[in-house]
C-alpha cells in the first residue's frame, strides 16, 4: 500500500539510470545503512564481530567477486579459496616487509596481486568453457594452496606453518591484531565493503558489465557485435580476483588474525562462496549479500536453536546443522533457482499491488 511509484516521474535519463530510481527504495536503503552504521556498533561485542558481522561482510565481498565472474560473465570458477589465499599471503608479506605501509594500501595491493594471478589462471577460459573451465580453476585452487604451504618464504619461515597478522592502525585506530576493538573492525569492514559493493554495481550497469553479460548469454553474437572475448573474459577474471583477493586479505588480516593455508583456504571455501552466489542469486550484487548472510548466519541460528532451545548435544546439533544446510540449499534451488535476489524482486512486485492484486 505504501510501496507505490505512482507520481514519481523521471524527466531525464540520469534519474532513470539512478541506482534506486524509486523513492521508497532509497529510504529503505538509507534506513538500513543508518542502522548498520549508527546502531549496530553499540551492540557489537567480540562474539557478534567474530562470529556474525565480520564473516557476513567478508564473505559478501568474496561473493561479489565470484558473482562478477560467474554470475555476470558466465565463467565458472572453483578457485575462490586459492585466490583468497593469494590475497591473504600478499597481505602477510606486505605488512611484514613494509611495516609502515598503510593497511588500506596493503589491502588494495593484495587485491591487485590477486588480480594478476587471476588473469594468469583465467587464460584457459579463452579456449575452454563450462565444466572444463571449472576443472581448470580447480587446478588453481590446489596449486596455490600447495604453493603457500610448501614454500617457506611465503610463511616467513614460521616454524608452526601459520601466518599471523601484526597489529595495524588506520587513522590511529587499531584495526587488526587481537587487541583491536570489535566495533572498529566491524565499521572498517562495513565501510570498505560498502564502497566496493557500490563500485561493483557501477561496473555491472555500464559498458564493462554489459560486455560481460553479453559474453555470458551468447559469446558468438557478442564477438560479432564487436566485443572482444579476450578482453571481456580477462577483465572479468582480473576484477573478480581483485575482489576475492581483498576479501582474502580482510579474512586473514581483520577476522582470523592468524591462518594456516590448507585449513583456512581449502576447497571448502571455494564451494562455500559458490553456494552463496547460487543461493543468493547469480548476476546480482544484492544476491551476493543475501547469499552470504544465509550461508554464514543460518548455521548459527540453527545451532542456537538446537543447543539452547532443544537441549541437544553439541555434536548432534552440528551433524543436524550440516544436513539441514544441505537440505535448505536444495529446497531453495528447487523453489527459486534464481536465488534470494529474485525472491526479493518478486516480493517488491507483489508489494506494489498489495492489497489489491487485480
Amino acid at each position, binding site marked *: 500500500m505504501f510501496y507505490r511509484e505512482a507520481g514519481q516521474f523521471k524527466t531525464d535519463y540520469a534519474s532513470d539510470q539512478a541506482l534506486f530510481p524509486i523513492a521508497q527504495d532509497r529510504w529503505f536503503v538509507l534506513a538500513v545503512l543508518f542502522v548498520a552504521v549508527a546502531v549496530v556498533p553499540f551492540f557489537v561485542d567480540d562474539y557478534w564481530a567474530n562470529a556474525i558481522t565480520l564473516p557476513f561482510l567478508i564473505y559478501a565481498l568474496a561473493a561479489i567477486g565470484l558473482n562478477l565472474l560467474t554470475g555476470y560473465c558466465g565463467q565458472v570458477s572453483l578457485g575462490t579459496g586459492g585466490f583468497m589465499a593469494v590475497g591473504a599471503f600478499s597481505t602477510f608479506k606486505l605488512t611484514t616487509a613494509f611495516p609502515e605501509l598503510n593497511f588500506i594500501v596493503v589491502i588494495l595491493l593484495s587485491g591487485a596481486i590477486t588480480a594478476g594471478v587471476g588473469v594468469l589462471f583465467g587464460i584457459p577460459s579463452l579456449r575452454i568453457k563450462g565444466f572444463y573451465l571449472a576443472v581448470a580453476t580447480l587446478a588453481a585452487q590446489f596449486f596455490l594452496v600447495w604453493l603457500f604451504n610448501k614454500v617457506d618464504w611465503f610463511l616467513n619461515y614460521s616454524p608452526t606453518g601459520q601466518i599471523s597478522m601484526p597489529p595495524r592502525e588506520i587513522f590511529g585506530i587499531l584495526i587488526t591484531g587481537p587487541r583491536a576493538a570489535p566495533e572498529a573492525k566491524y565499521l572498517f569492514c562495513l565501510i570498505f565493503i560498502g564502497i566496493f559493493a557500490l563500485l561493483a554495481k557501477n*561496473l555491472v550497469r555500464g559498458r564493462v558489465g554489459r560486455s560481460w553479460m553479453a559474453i555470458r548469454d551468447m559469446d558468438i553474437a557478442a564477438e*560479432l*557485435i*564487436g566485443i572482444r572475448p579476450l578482453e571481456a573474459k580477462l577483465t572479468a577474471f582480473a576484477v573478480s580476483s581483485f575482489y576475492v583477493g581483498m576479501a582474502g586479505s580482510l579474512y586473514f588480516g581483520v577476522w582470523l588474525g592468524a591462518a594456516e593455508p590448507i585449513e583456512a583456504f581449502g576447497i571448502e571455501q571455494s564451494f562455500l562462496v559458490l553456494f552463496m552466489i547460487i543461493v543468493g542469486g547469480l*548476476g546480482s550484487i544484492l544476491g551476493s549479500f543475501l547469499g552470504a548472510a544465509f550461508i554464514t548466519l543460518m548455521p548459527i541460528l540453527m545451532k542456537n536453536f538446537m543447543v539452547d532451545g532443544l537441549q541437544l548435544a553439541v555434536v548432534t546439533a552440528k551433524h543436524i546443522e550440516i544436513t539441514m544446510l544441505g537440505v535448505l540449499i536444495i529446497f531453495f534451488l528447487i523453489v527459486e533457482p534464481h536465488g534470494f535476489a529474485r525472491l526479493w524482486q518478486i516480493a517488491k512486485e507483489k508489494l506494489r499491488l498489495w492489497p489489491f492484486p487485480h
Partner: protein
Amino acid sequence: MEGDRKFGDPILEVQDINLSFGGVTALEGVSFDILNGEVRAIIGPNGAGKSSMLNVINGFYHPQQGQITYKGKTRRQMRPHHAASSGIARTFQNIALFKGMSTLDNIMTGRNTKMRKNLLWQALYLGPAKREELEHRDFVEHVIDFLEIQAIRKTPVGKLPYGMQKRVELGRALAAEPELLLLDEPMAGMNLEEKEDMCRFVLDVNDQFGTTIALIEHDMGVVMDISDRVVVLDYGKKIADGTPEEVRADQRVIEAYLGVTRDDN
C-alpha cells in the same frame, strides 16, 4: 521499388571467395559488390551458402581464397571486432540476443564499440563516465522510438515474443550506427503483419539513415518488393545477379528453385 534510385560507389566488393569446411565446399568463386545506399538481397535455396557469405563479410569465417574490399581497403579476411568497429552490423538467423538482459541493455551493447571510458571511470560512475553513459542512452532511446518498442524497454528479452525479439535484434544492430547492415532472414517465421512492419523498418533505415543493407530472405514477395539488386547463390556458386526483374526471369534461377534434374553428369 520505383526505378530511378541512384547509388554511389561500391561500399563492399567480394572477389572470388572460396570457403570450405574440411571437404565440404560452402562457397566457390563467389564475387559480387554492394553499392553504397542500396538494398541488396542474397537469395538461394537452403544450403546455398547465404549465411556463410554474411559470416565471411563480417569476419566470422575466414575464406581460404579471395579478397574483400570494404570502403576502399582490400584484405584477405575481416576480423569480427574490426568489422564491427568499421561500421558493419548484423542480425542473426536464429535470434542471438542476450537473454538475461533487458531490451535497453541489449541495444546498449550495440554501442559498446563506441564507448571509450575505462574500467576505473566506470566503477566510479562520475563525471565523464556518467556523461558518456547518458549520451549513449539518449541515442539508444532514438532507436527505441524508431522501432516503436518503448513499452518493452525494461523487459528481459527472454520474455518477449518472437517478432519483438527480432525487432530488438534489429535495434541492437542499428545502435552501432552501421554503414552496412547485414540482415540474416529478418522476416523468417513472422506473420504477415510482422513482416510488413519489418519491411517498413528496413526501408526506413535505408531511406532515413542512408544505411546500405544486405539481406538474406526466403520470402520472394518481400525480396522482389524491397530490394534493388539480387544475388542468387546455389550450391555455393553465384548463378545470377541483377535487378529483381532480371533475376526472376533467369532460367538458372527458376531451375534452382523448382529443381530440375540435370543430365550433365
